């Protein structure tokens, strides 16, 4: 290989040229543009692999084996049969069916080759007819022509696989051990994708890694923050590493549109949708479930988009992502909604639990408990109200119904799980008696208590529209925005009262807030009441423990709000849905603006998630109690930093000032030099300002006031 030079060869060349290698700065070597001296760049293997697909060009040919061996007389008949089977699937090219004859016996050889117009058709044909029973003794074995090379290479003798010695990988969670306990985030603006530290102390982001054209559509963190996924035409890729971002694994899936991680980061689901060859058909949907670490396809799902459209009872709402919803601890189950059923799969075997789907007539929606293998599902009203709507909780894998609640004259239902899976809130829109309008109530399930008691909650004014609902993460409170749009009210409720843990109590109602979205801090207690879109980015930072507003502010036109995983900082962003003001702001949890970055064509802002804490609740409590002791160290550091910062700032200003003064003195000098020339241009007129001013003393007398006073003079009288 020309591109690999042996080290001693390099040394020999270097000594011949009189170069001391130890002194040589390799980074200073620059190649002329367009010349790479045969050195292959790291990224180029990507291109080379892609090219392979196009070079061979036999992807549209399949080989059908196990055909009957027939003499010449029956050749025509067999050909008609084969043509009939295979032209159903796709268009066979002209002369695209070739069945060779044995030159001696003049009989067919028991196989044929079929060429389609597109590789997709060929792939489909292989899938559909592999194992097709023509009759008892002829079961088709269909393979892609391209695969034959591969099959031929399989050695006849089995050789034990070489065991590669284990090399420990990088610590993918290195970022968690940051000295300053900072958090990372990724932003995508223009063609650049950038990972940055949120250095709130220095009031600026600190770059980690930046790359242009890193992804072709979007990026996504894995749920525990270990990986960053990028999406490309050929498939998805995940990136991670100790200090920088290296590509860890690639997942081939042409034209992938959506990706989804399992919550435990074990699997990656990819999704793509393809235009059908027949325009009347629905789009073809392809989904793959990969093992995240090995990159192996664990299971694939293919079918028409109709099969995956959610909206059970004949309502085709299109495919809503994610199709597969994960449930149970350690990514044990995943489920999808089908027509009149919920298909629950287990990841041990990647097959249906009990080999059959959960049959639920007309099921419209379902959701997993975030912690337990429990599914909450909603079935709408049927038969014009004869059969009530219902919400039920089903345990997996036993498929036993834990609790069910029938609901009458329901128009719609939404389910909200609390993050620990302790509570489930079901927002129920019901028709009024006249059926002309709807009103809203809540059914609150206490999952962890015996028999799962249900409480019904209606708002004080039950005709209020519900604009938003949100559970306090890990807590027992929730917030609701209700009322009419320009100035709705915000109410806070708790699942407990002071004396009784089993009853709901209202904590407070804030009247007339300009808000339409709720963002709880991930640690609870603090919430942002945000007025996005129509409200131009009004933000109110609210402390629910004290029931007081900490700050009211605004990020004009803000479209997105995201808390950092520790609940210390908040990012608000204006993405490219607006033309102007693109960029993001970072706030402290109490609503103090820390810094502001503007970027045109701003698409995404995502905090890097953190895995859950390993600390036991007792330990956490202990830390909270002795916070003073722990925080001392950090406060001292903070002070140092702020001292340093102001010093640096002063230094920077001084530098700028000096630099400017240098310019000014140079200009003055040149200006002076050119003075005569300038005078000449002006026909000898004194050109510069100073000379024109003449000192002239002007006396201005101003009459301020005139008053007459009669002075009585004694003189006269004398």
């Amino acid at each position, binding site marked *: 290989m020309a591109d690999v030079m042996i080290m001693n060869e390099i040394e020999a060349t270097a000594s011949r040229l009189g170069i001391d290698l130890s002194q040589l700065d390799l980074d200073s070597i620059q190649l002329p543009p367009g010349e790479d001296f045969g050195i292959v760049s790291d990224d180029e293997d990507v291109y080379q692999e892609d090219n392979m697909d196009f070079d061979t060009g036999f992807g549209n040919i399949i080989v059908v084996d196990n055909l009957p061996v027939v003499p010449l007389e029956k050749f025509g008949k067999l050909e008609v049969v084969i043509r009939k089977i295979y032209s159903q699937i796709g268009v066979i090219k002209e002369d695209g069916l070739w069945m060779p004859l044995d030159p001696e016996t003049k009989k067919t050889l028991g196989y044929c080759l079929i060429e389609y117009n597109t590789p997709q058709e060929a792939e489909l044909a292989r899938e559909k007819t592999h194992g097709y029973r023509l009759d008892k003794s002829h079961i088709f074995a269909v393979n892609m022509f391209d695969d034959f090379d591969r099959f031929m290479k399989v050695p006849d003798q089995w050789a034990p696989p070489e065991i590669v010695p284990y090399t420990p990988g990088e610590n993918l969670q290195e970022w968690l051990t940051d000295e300053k306990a900072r958090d990372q985030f990724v932003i995508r603006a223009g063609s650049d994708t950038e990972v940055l530290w949120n250095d709130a102390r220095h009031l600026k982001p600190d770059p980690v890694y930046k790359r242009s054209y890193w992804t072709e559509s979007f990026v996504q963190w894995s749920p525990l923050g270990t990986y960053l996924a990028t999406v490309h035409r050929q498939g998805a890729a995940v990136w991670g590493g100790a200090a920088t971002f290296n590509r860890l694994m690639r997942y081939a899936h042409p034209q992938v549109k959506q990706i989804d991680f399992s919550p435990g980061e074990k699997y990656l689901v990819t999704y793509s949708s393809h235009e059908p060859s027949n325009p009347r058909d629905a789009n073809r949907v392809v989904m793959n479930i990969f093992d995240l670490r090995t990159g192996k396809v664990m299971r694939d799902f293919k079918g028409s988009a109709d099969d995956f459209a959610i909206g059970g009872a004949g309502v085709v709402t299109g495919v809503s992502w994610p199709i597969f919803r994960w449930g149970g601890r350690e990514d044990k189950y995943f489920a999808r909604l089908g027509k009149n059923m919920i298909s629950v799969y287990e990841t041990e075997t990647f097959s249906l639990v009990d080999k059959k789907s959960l049959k639920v007539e007309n099921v419209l929606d379902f959701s997993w408990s975030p912690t337990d293998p429990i599914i909450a599902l909603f079935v709408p009203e049927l038969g014009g109200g004869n059969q009530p709507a219902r919400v039920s909780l089903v345990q997996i894998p036993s498929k036993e119904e834990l609790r069910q609640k029938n609901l009458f004259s329901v128009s719609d239902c939404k389910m909200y799980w609390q993050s620990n899976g302790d509570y489930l809130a079901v927002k129920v829109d019901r028709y009024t008696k006249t059926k002309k309008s709807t009103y809203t109530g809540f059914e609150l399930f206490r999952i962890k208590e015996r028999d799962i008691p249900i409480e019904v909650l209606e708002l004080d004014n039950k005709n209020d529209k519900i604009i938003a609902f949100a559970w306090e993460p890990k807590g027992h409170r929730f917030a609701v925005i209700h009322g009419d749009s320009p100035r709705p009210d915000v109410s806070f409720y708790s699942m407990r009262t002071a004396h009784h843990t089993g009853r709901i109590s209202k904590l407070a109602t804030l009247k007339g807030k300009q808000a339409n979205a709720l963002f709880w801090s991930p640690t609870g207690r603090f919430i942002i009441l945000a007025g996005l879109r129509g409200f131009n980015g009004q933000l109110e930072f609210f402390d629910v423990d004290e029931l007081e507003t900490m700050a009211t502010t605004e990020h004009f036109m803000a479209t997105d709000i995201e808390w950092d995983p520790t609940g210390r900082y908040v990012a608000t962003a204006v993405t490219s849905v607006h033309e*102007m003001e693109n960029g993001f702001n970072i706030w402290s949890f109490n609503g103090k603006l820390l810094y502001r970055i503007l970027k045109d064509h701003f698409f995404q802002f995502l905090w890097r998630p953190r895995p859950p804490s390993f600390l036991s609740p007792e330990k956490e409590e202990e830390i909270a109690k002795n916070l003073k002791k722990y925080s001392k160290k950090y406060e001292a550091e903070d002070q140092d930093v702020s001292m340093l910062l102001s010093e640096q700032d002063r230094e920077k200003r001084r530098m700028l000032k000096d630099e400017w003064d240098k310019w000014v003195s140079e200009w003055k000098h040149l200006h002076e030099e*050119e003075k005569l020339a300038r005078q000449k241009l002006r026909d000898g007129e004194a050109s510069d300002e100073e000379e024109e001013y003449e000192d002239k003393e002007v006396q201005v007398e101003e009459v301020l006031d005139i008053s007459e006073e009669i002075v009585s003079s004694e003189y006269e009288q004398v």
Partner: protein
Amino acid sequence: MRPILMKGHERPLTFLKYNRDGDLLFSCAKDHDPTVWFADNGERLGTYRGHNGAVWCCDVSRDSTRLITGSADQTAKLWNVQTGQQLFTFKFESPARAVDFSVGDKHAVITTDPFMGLTSAIHVKRIARDVDEQTAESVLTIQGPQGRINRAVWGPLNKTIISAGEDAIVRIWDTETGNLLKESDKETGHKKTVTSLMKSADGSHFLTGSLDKSAKLWDARTLTLIKTYVTERPVNAVAMSPLLDHVVLGGGQDASAVTTTDHRAGKFEAKFYDKILQGEIGGVKGHFGPINALAFNPDGRSFSSGGEDGYVRLHHFDPDYFNIKI
């Protein structure tokens, strides 16, 4: 600081210019009549009637006797400042965009737009002392840059002409030969149309504003990029305080993109920046539309802004302004 609202134009303002003494303010607008005002109290002195198209730019001679205007009616005209009398008309084949008198007022540079197959051009005309001797002949014609040239001004000692326009590149030309001497770097320079260019009082440096939402400060001799001021809106107009180290940027969302959402969405503010530290100092609100023109009074104690809304706002600074510290 209560501004004086000067309503005299019926169409969007395009350019503002103070004379050297700072007592007169000339305004150009898309209506056809350049107007002169008292710079102190905003009283209208008169208009210069004769153009038959939008007037894009003007310049006044050092002794405040001559005014030159460039208009979309494909002419540039010389005027008697005092009487309003039309002295001479330069005719072109395409709209005249930028005009500027040289040091000594013996030459003027006039740029013309690309139009009906014609490319844009920079013309240098001799300005005769006596109007009767005035000719329409060009001393020099420079062609080259693609797209409209939005501003052209004379460099130090009339040795160079500095031009900038739609192609986002700032160029310095030799006035003797018409050769291109320098052009700004694509990497560090503006990314979108340069809309305005303003020289410093001594002509040693100049400020350019661009639709790429930034303004840049350049050395007029070497075309070295010295400073960049970043804002949130496209910049239509720039000005530099002759007194303090302040620059003012005006602009706003494009008039056609202004939606009915919120008046703040446009950000039609004149924004003040520290010239050295590049930090924002403050803003002056008021216009109900993008700012198209800005000018500082040569004494540095007042400035005026002209907007798409057809108003000129004349601001005399409060005493506080002169004590701003950042």
